């Protein structure tokens, strides 16, 4: 445990990249210690005065952030090797946990880097579209409100609804990589949620078809890293197992019905 009173600087080691095609490189920064900072506020300090630890003036570090309260997922990055949100990563806690050595910031590795810590996470949106992760209400006539959701189903749906599509589960998943087109734990959980929904349920089979297509739920290898890194503590592995049950039953039923 480091005594925060003895800390004079917050040190950072940032993996940078100028554009998607150029190679990445590391740069060290340090800012005078102030209590109660988070990684976003530290990056803002660097933006005000973009000088490296060895006195070289450089381009300010590029990163994304939006809500600043761990509900949007925009500031997701690797902080000391752990995928998490920069806004919720408190520097005092990091220094207490990892000591006085530089806090290491890297962009997520499973998404294309645009610049520095900013990545293109649109693949996640594509995957949500792939599994029909929305309630379809647009049609020629109004379909009404639908029946009320039972309390026990609401509880399951509420947990999954915390997902902010931040990408931490995909970052940690060994089976989500350039060699496969695995749809990922978050999209599988979303299918469970939308298939519970009273109106969303009307497209349940469309979603299950997507889950058993190439790159679907079968690509899960049960490493269960997704559950461990989820910043919203969504029990992704239970949702995957529940969808395994639904997907298997669906495929068998489909085979026997036709």
């Amino acid at each position, binding site marked *: 445990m480091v005594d925060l009173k003895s800390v004079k600087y917050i040190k950072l080691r940032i993996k940078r990249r100028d554009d998607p095609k150029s190679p990445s490189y590391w740069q060290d920064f340090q800012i005078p210690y102030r209590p109660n900072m988070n990684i976003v506020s530290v990056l803002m300090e660097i933006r005000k005065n973009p000088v490296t630890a060895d006195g070289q003036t450089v381009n300010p570090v590029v990163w994304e952030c939006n809500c600043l309260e761990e509900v949007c997922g925009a500031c997701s990055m690797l902080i000391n090797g752990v995928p998490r949100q920069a806004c919720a990563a408190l520097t005092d806690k990091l220094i207490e946990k990892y000591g006085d050595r530089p806090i290491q910031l890297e962009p997520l590795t499973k998404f294309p880097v645009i610049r520095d810590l900013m990545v293109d996470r649109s693949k996640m949106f594509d995957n949500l579209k792939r599994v029909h992760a929305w309630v379809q209400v647009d049609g020629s006539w109004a379909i009404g409100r639908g029946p009320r959701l039972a309390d026990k189903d609401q509880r399951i749906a509420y947990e999954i609804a915390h997902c902010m599509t931040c990408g931490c589960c995909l970052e940690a998943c060994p089976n989500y*990589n350039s*060699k496969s087109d695995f749809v990922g734990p978050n999209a599988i959980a979303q299918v469970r949620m939308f298939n519970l929904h009273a109106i969303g349920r009307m497209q349940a089979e469309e979603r299950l078809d997507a889950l058993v297509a190439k790159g679907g739920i079968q*690509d899960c290898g049960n490493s269960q890293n997704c559950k461990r890194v989820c910043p919203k503590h969504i029990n992704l*592995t*239970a949702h995957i*197992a529940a969808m395994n049950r*639904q997907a298997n039953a669906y*495929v068998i039923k489909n085979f026997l019905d036709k």
Partner: protein
Amino acid sequence: MSKFSFFLRRFHSLIAVVPLGLFIFVHFMLNSAIFLGSDAYVTMMGFMRGFPFVQVLELLLIAIPIIFHGIYGIYIVYLAKNNVLQYKYYRNFAFYLQRITAIILVAFIIWHVYTLRFADANLAVMLHSPLIFVLYVIGVLAAIYHFTNGLFTFCITWGICVGDRAQKIFAICATLLFIVMSLWAVAILLSLALA
């Protein structure tokens, strides 16, 4: 056709338990004849080799499933980008070990089947060599780990255990099964080596 990879992966999972998982038990039970002495062991092996339609049974219940499981399994090993050094979680380590034991087993099973089924070597004599004994212990423990950990993930893959509590109970059962089967297998190997 779009469900083809789903079908392959589920088939790969299913045949691992039936017939291959069941076969491990039958295999160990037959090997246990060594506990009654080498005469009983030889009688049992002679009986199994002369079993009606033994070659058809071997081909349909063992050879074809194991070759499919092995080849598709190597593809699954290739698909993963392991990250145990970065994410030091128990299940992630088990995921990695499942793939390591898979590779060990491909080599071990080819050697095991070639020497004992086709080249007709005498295992009891082979096991007198400490090197072969150690290789056998490694191979058999890898098989048991791959089976018991696979049995646990089978229960998730088929949606048998879903919640945390169920998964925890199944994980404990799989670990106990690993310990029991390991002791059983080592006892068989020791009895064979000392026979």
